[in-house]
């Protein structure tokens, strides 16, 4: 076999591998499109009453109308901000707690059983009490989101702290790093892969919690909006809202989590 022929074969086979990879990467489109198509067919055949399940095309057209409606966008923004506040609060409490528990066994023995105990309780069971104390408003919703986000962040960061090699602490001491720079230039970067998984889990939990809180307490937000569409029989708007939440989730994933992950992948 001539060299050039061999080259041609290898390059065509790498090409093929590349194509297959590209296709498998986007294979998720197939079941999604299938689902949407069968949805459209089933609703067109009037197998379900339109007020229960609108056609996909109706949902899409209502979606494009809704996203031009400031009130609709504000509701989404409201829920999303509640979520961010909850995440931020949970993170700022969990980080020092998890770091202390992960590095000092004595604190871990005191703190972790307590965290476990509260973590084992269903978070939403506190909701009626929170509403009693704070009223059905932002305070209750943010507290709920904080509680729900705390556990995944705490446990991943505690695990992360335990996995920081002792030697790295010795390195910071030998080179006379002060407490602050040890924390910002050693502990935080070392924890970043764990932060990534903790925040991601917490983010998913919090969407569920916030929608549930809004539905249960009728407070402003996209959850109560969905609830409203069902009682007024305009389920297409409800589906449009769900679609909007999905798009926000995808955007956050791409813009925040992916970039954090790709930074971590570079060195980890």
């Amino acid at each position, binding site marked *: 076999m001539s060299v050039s022929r061999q080259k041609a074969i290898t390059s065509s086979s790498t090409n093929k591998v590349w194509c297959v990879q590209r296709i498998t990467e986007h294979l998720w489109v197939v079941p999604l499109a299938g689902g949407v198509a069968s949805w459209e067919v089933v609703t067109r055949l009037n197998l379900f009453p339109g007020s229960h399940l609108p056609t996909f095309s109706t949902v899409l057209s209502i979606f494009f109308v809704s996203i031009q409606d400031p009130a609709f966008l504000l509701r989404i923004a409201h829920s999303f901000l509640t979520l961010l506040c909850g995440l931020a609060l949970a993170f700022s409490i969990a980080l020092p707690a998890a770091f202390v528990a992960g590095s000092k066994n004595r604190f871990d023995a005191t703190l972790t059983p307590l965290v476990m105990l509260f973590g084992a309780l269903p978070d939403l069971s506190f909701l009626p009490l929170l509403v009693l104390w704070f009223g059905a408003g932002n305070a209750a919703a943010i507290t709920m989101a904080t509680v729900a986000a705390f556990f995944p962040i705490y446990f991943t960061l505690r695990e992360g702290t335990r996995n920081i*090699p002792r030697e790295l602490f*010795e*390195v910071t*001491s030998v080179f006379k790093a002060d407490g602050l720079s040890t924390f910002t230039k050693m502990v935080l*970067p070392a924890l970043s892969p764990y932060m990534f998984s903790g925040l991601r889990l917490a983010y998913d939990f919090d969407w569920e919690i916030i929608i549930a809180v809004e539905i249960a307490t009728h407070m402003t937000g996209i959850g109560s909006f969905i609830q409203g569409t069902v009682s007024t029989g305009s389920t297409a708007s409800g589906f449009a809202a769900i679609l909007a939440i999905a798009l926000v989730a995808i955007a956050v994933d791409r813009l925040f989590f992916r970039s954090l992950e790709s930074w971590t992948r570079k060195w*980890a």
Partner: protein
Amino acid sequence: MENHVELDNVTKFYQSQEKQLHALHEVTFDVDRGEFVCIVGPSGCGKSTLLKIIAGLDEPSSGEVRFKGRIVEEPQSKISMVFQAFGLFPWRTVLENVEYGLEMQKAPKNKRRDVSKQYLEMVGLSGYEHMYPKQLSGGMKQRVGIARALAVDPEVVLMDEAFSAIDEVTAEVLREEVTALHRETGKTFVLVTHNLSEALELADKVVVLSSRPAKVKKVLPVALERPRDRAHSNFIHMHTDILHLLKEELENTLLRRKLRNMDEVKALHDMEPEEKAK
């Protein structure tokens, strides 16, 4: 020559759940300025603990370490260290890792960069500045570790089993380079190792520790000609002498404690490949 580092009756106890562990017992020896001292001893005897105490990372229970006549109570900016598992920050590039010590001393950015590049060149890593540690072999990682330790211009470089996590051929090359660095920089080096040949190849003086609690069993000046020749009869004689000292220690320990785990027996075997070869 003056006493650069002095260890004066350094004793260390560890308290671990009701059990008190006696790690070091009245360890006393001096290190001269510019001297290369190797500390050898059986595995788990407390060599690394001793080095940490010299570094100011750990306190002795009694006795003291003096650096230029002053008691070491915390890490010193003129005492630097090379770590067994390299101790590199994986999220920093090679250059950023070497810059770390200078960064902590708040040196200006330009100076940091220039000095670090100079030391990277010295350890043969020019062109690797922007790689991450995970992209390097063990030997290259330790070169980064050595460059980082030297970049802060220390007077004393402490090395904790610095060649133990590296394959033997690379370690051999690295040892030659460290010998050259020692000669060129005139800095004081203290290496902890369980590898006798390594100690004899590098050291001006070998401190032999006993098994736990570690005491100084013997301090041996190494008057062998440099570059050291492992096949030279004097080298082999010294090697055999120290090996006997250590074997004696291990056998005593084995008899005394009837050890169930075989770690220390393994350590004994690790130390005599050259004897078997003969």
